[in-house]
């Protein structure tokens, strides 16, 4: 009953900074980018005129944009399943260890923390035909390795490999957390029922239990893979022959090198829409999993 009397200005003051910053740094920019997408405005240009969906029409006709969408899709389709499988295998192996769990978990997560821009330089050295480890090894077994990062047919796959390397740690972590919730009784029951071998139990007990978390990991990895940028910016700059031109790098070029601001804004709006769809899916899956 006293509550209303107590409700002074204090709570409002406590949320005020966050509210102001949310408005100024997230909602306002969001509105700005959407508005820009419907104009002919570019940075340094004159007054903006409303042009409706014209910018989007131009964008969809832009060959570079189509290339970027296609490359991003190929990247995501390559990276996400591989990331999830690598994370799952690592988690299954680690979860069964009696010793060294924390050590393995740390080692496998290390790439996700390592500064990707700096690690791109390291990967460049690893893949380099002259000084790289992988070409050296391939040469030992009698193959003649090419220069993957300079090869339009291979460059995106090479970046994908690095993407898997840097993201699989998250998948492993989430699967490990999921595996902790597999009730031991399930395994015992399965053993009693004669679901004998390790693989049988994996297939009939563990994996079904992990299904919801797998869905979550797939969406999480997709959102991350969609944002691929650092490796492209450091190693290939969209090349060779635009074979690694991906969504964010396209936006980056349009906005900050070519200064076609409205076009970049329209592409950003589509990018946000894609991430939004995936995030809603993630939210839905998280809810379903938590049962709340």
């Amino acid at each position, binding site marked *: 009953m006293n509550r209303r009397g*107590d409700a002074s200005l*204090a*709570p*409002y003051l*406590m*949320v005020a*900074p*966050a*509210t102001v*910053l*949310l408005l100024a*740094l*997230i909602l306002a*920019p*969001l509105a*700005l*980018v959407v508005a*820009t997408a419907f104009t002919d405005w570019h940075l340094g240009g004159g007054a903006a005129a409303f042009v409706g969906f014209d910018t989007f029409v131009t964008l969809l006709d832009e060959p570079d944009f189509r290339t970027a969408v296609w490359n991003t899709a190929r990247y995501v389709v390559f990276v996400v399943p591989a990331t999830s499988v690598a994370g799952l295998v*690592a988690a299954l*192996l680690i979860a069964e*260890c*009696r010793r*060294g769990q*924390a050590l*393995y978990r*740390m*080692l*496998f*997560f*290390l790439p996700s*923390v*390592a*500064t*990707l*821009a*700096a*690690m791109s*330089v*390291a990967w460049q*050295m*690893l893949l380099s035909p002259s*000084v790289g480890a992988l070409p*050296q090894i391939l040469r030992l077994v009698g193959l003649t390795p090419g220069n993957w990062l300079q090869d339009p047919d291979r460059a995106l796959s090479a970046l994908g490999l690095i993407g898997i390397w840097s993201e699989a740690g998250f998948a492993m*972590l989430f699967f490990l957390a999921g595996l902790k919730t597999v009730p031991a009784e399930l395994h015992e029951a399965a053993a009693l029922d004669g679901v004998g071998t*390790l693989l049988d139990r994996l297939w009939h007990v563990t994996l079904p239990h992990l299904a919801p978390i797998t869905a979550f990991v797939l969406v*999480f990895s997709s959102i991350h893979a969609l*944002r691929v*940028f650092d490796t492209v*910016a*450091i190693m290939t700059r969209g090349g060779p022959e635009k074979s690694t031109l991906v969504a964010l790098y396209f*936006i*980056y070029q349009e906005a900050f090198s070519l200064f076609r*601001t409205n076009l970049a*804004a329209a592409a*950003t709006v589509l*990018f*946000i829409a894609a*991430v*939004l769809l995936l995030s809603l899916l993630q939210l839905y899956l998280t809810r379903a999993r*938590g049962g709340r």
Partner: protein
Amino acid sequence: MMQPSSRLVGIVRHLLLATGAMLVLLPLLWAIRISFLPAEDVFSPQFHLLPSRWIGFENYARALTASPLLRFLVNGVVVCAAIILCQVLVAIPCAYILAKGRIVGLRLIWLAVLVGLVVPPAALALPLFIMAAQLGLIDTYAALILPWTISPLGIFLLRQAFLRVPDELIEAARLDGLGEVEILARILVPLITPAIGALIMISLVAHWNDLLWPSVVVTSGDKATPPFGVMLFQVQEIGSDYGPLLAGAIMIAAPLLLVFILTQRRFLDGLSWTGSK
């Protein structure tokens, strides 16, 4: 009779994991190797796994002198510290009210947080750049710091933590005559330190490693943060000098890796908790 086979399985498991770990660490190990190679070894037709002569930390010294690497690192520390401090100070009171308060407009603020949670920071680079340009902030620390002073994820995480604090505790403190701010600072914040720790680490990783935003607003080496420094290396003399280049890359990644290794158990537990929320 189960014993021998289960022991064998255990050994195979460790072998697989150790091999996997080696593969995962290979880029890093290769970089460390090259960072200790003398220049003549790098391109020598004769393959040397180990340096043909020990040059110590010569490449590291060259990386520090040939580029403003130290400057980049200091910039990185300053920018990250400022961002994290702001994020924590802004998130705590807001998350507390979102969890326990009853004010008009609460749902709207919560909705804004959720929107912020979904919008990828990279997508805001363009409008934030336009805003920074209009305010004349290009190539300043302010431009590097200000846009990230709010962390919707941080507010989200801290709210989850505050929700677990029993209401009775807060009521009791009120009966003792403590004000809202005192309750928050003295009683509640100590209770949610794991969540604050998770926020600090997530934010540190995100902003120490961020390449996109600095490459948008920074135009000089003077304000460059470490990842943007890597981009600058490539157009500089050091870019074709592999030993110092990799020594530089290692020094850029090392601070964060050290923090991670020292806090890994708490950090990873916090992160998997985050993922399950």
